[in-house]
Structure formats: C-alpha cells, structure tokens
C-alpha cells in the first residue's frame, strides 16, 4: 500500500507516492549540498526543480495517477547524479565525469564487484559430502585426506564435528569454476537467498549421489549372488 501525497514543485501541484517523494527529497538535498558553495545556488536549484516538475507533468498528462519511484529514478537518470553535475572550477578532474550515466544503483553494483579477496570455497570437484574438507585443504594447500581424518575424529569424539560440518556446508559457497577455487576470488558476498538456494542445490545433489550409491551397492550384491 502506498500513501499518495501532493507536493508543490516550482508552482505545479504533483501527486506523488510517499517513497518516491522520499527519494526525490534525498536527491534534491544532495544537489543542494553539491551546489552549496556555488554563487547562484538558488537559481540552479530553482531551474532544476522546474525541470523536474515539467518532466513529472508530462507523466501526469499521460494519465498516470501519481508519480512513483521508477518515475523519480528516470528523472534522476535524465538530469544526472549530483556528482556528475558539479563540474565547477573546484574539482576539475575528480570523479565528476567518469561515468556520465551512472545511477545510485550502479554505485552499489560497483561495490559488490570490488568484493574480491582470498576466500574459502567448497570444492565441488573433489567431494565426499559437500566438498568442505577439500575446500579447506585447497585454502591451506594441504592434502584433503588430513582434513578429512581430522573431521572424522571430531565427528566421533565430540559430535561437534557433525554440526561444524553442516554449518560449513551451508555457509561456505561452492566454487563456480576451478579457477575460482584456486584463486579463491569468487564473486559476491553471501546473502540469505544464496544460502537458501545453495542448500536446495546441495540437497538435490546429495539425493542424486545417494541414489547412485545405492544402485551401485545393489549391482555389487546382485553380481555376488
């Protein structure tokens, strides 16, 4: 549910959804800060508000009941990010003109993209259950057998090993390629949805391999007879 409010921009009355209003307000605030030191700041803001109102009126005249978030985002894209607009004498070659069409969103995407450092990944190419042990082995560059033996000991002695393993299985993402595994530089931070998705995938894989194993065993015993 959205509350629709009426605002007055540059002498025009515009109906706008509440969250759209909030992001518009945010945009205008950043603009004001951006131009704070500029002589004639009020003129600039006034002109920009006027243009925003004009673009909104085009939408409203198209029989749209109220301006929503996507309309606001479109207007921001057309006008440009505050950092792209301020190209006064103060900051000539800073970030101001590197990406003329960038939006708030792409700034976030960039942040995700930079998330690459050494990472522990599960090894899907050599696994008994989930590839946790061999992943750890790759990480520390030792033989997976050693880790597996250690894990078995933990399983037997305290039972802690069991839970540790399950948690590792769920939390540590699987390597998507051999390259990723050995560089340990895979992708994005893990989100809740990733984890859910991973668990589903792993359960499916485990089921498949369980069926394979029982088939093999059946074959084995039927041959014996």
């Amino acid at each position, binding site marked *: 549910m959205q509350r629709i409010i009426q605002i007055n921009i540059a002498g025009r009355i515009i109906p706008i959804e509440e969250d759209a209003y909030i992001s518009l307000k945010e945009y205008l605030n950043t603009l004001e800060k951006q131009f704070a030191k500029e002589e004639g700041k009020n003129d600039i803001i006034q002109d920009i508000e006027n243009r925003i109102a004009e673009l909104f009126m085009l939408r409203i005249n198209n029989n749209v009941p109220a301006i929503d978030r996507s309309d606001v985002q479109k207007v921001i894209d057309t006008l*440009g990010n505050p950092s792209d607009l301020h190209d006064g004498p103060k900051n000539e070659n800073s970030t101001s003109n590197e990406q003329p069409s960038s939006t708030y969103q792409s700034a976030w995407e960039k942040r995700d993209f930079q998330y690459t450092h050494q990472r522990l990944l599960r090894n899907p190419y050599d696994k008994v259950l989930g590839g946790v042990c061999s992943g750890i082995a790759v990480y520390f560059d030792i033989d997976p057998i050693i880790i597996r033996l250690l894990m078995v000991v933990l399983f037997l002695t305290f039972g802690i090993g069991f839970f540790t393993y399950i948690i590792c299985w769920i939390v540590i993402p699987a390597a998507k390629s051999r390259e990723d595994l050995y560089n340990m530089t895979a992708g994005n931070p893990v989100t809740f949805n990733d984890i859910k998705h991973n668990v589903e995938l792993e359960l499916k894989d485990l089921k498949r391999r369980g069926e394979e194993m029982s088939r093999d065993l059946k074959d084995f015993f039927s041959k014996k007879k």
Partner: protein
Amino acid sequence: MTIDNTESQMRKGLLELCILGIIQREKEAYPSDILGELKEAKLVVLEGTLYPLLTRLKNAGMLSYTWKESLTGPPRKYYALTESGSEFYASLRASWNELNKAVNFLTESL
C-alpha cells in the same frame, strides 16, 4: 583514461559554445527548449549540466533572463545574451573555428 571519458570532456567543453549559439539564434531561449535542440543535434548531455552552466554564464554577465507568462504552467525563465555575451560568443566561435581547422589539418594529414 578511456574513450568515454575523453569524449565526455570534449562534449562538456563545447557545451558552453553550443548553448550560447542556440540562445544567439533564438534571441530568447527557455532552458527546456535548449535541451530539446541539443538532443535533436545528438549532442547528448545530462540535462542537469545545463543549469549550473546557465547560472554561471549569467553571473559572469554573459546572459540575462526575464520571466514570461506561459499558457501551460507557471511563468518561465527566458535567457538572452547580453552585449558582452554576444562578444564572448563571437570570440569563442572564432577560436573554435581556428581550432577546428587545426585539428582537422593535423588528424587528416596522418
């Protein structure tokens, strides 16, 4: 250093000249109409870059504006060149022509 970056620098540098040219031709220009002309000429700019530029030119005494009633909404701001604005435009245009010639000469002879 990317092509995009260099290109946008070029556009930005020439934007001032183009805006003054449009205003000179129209005698009086409404910012949204200026944007329309720039778009028609395929000189794509972020719309927001226009306004600080207009205000700066106004503060430098190159432009002046008057408010005019509009049929479709609130009064509009119309920009016009001042006397020193016309002179400024003329000299900018002359140096652009020279530059244009020089750049063409240098890059075409290769």
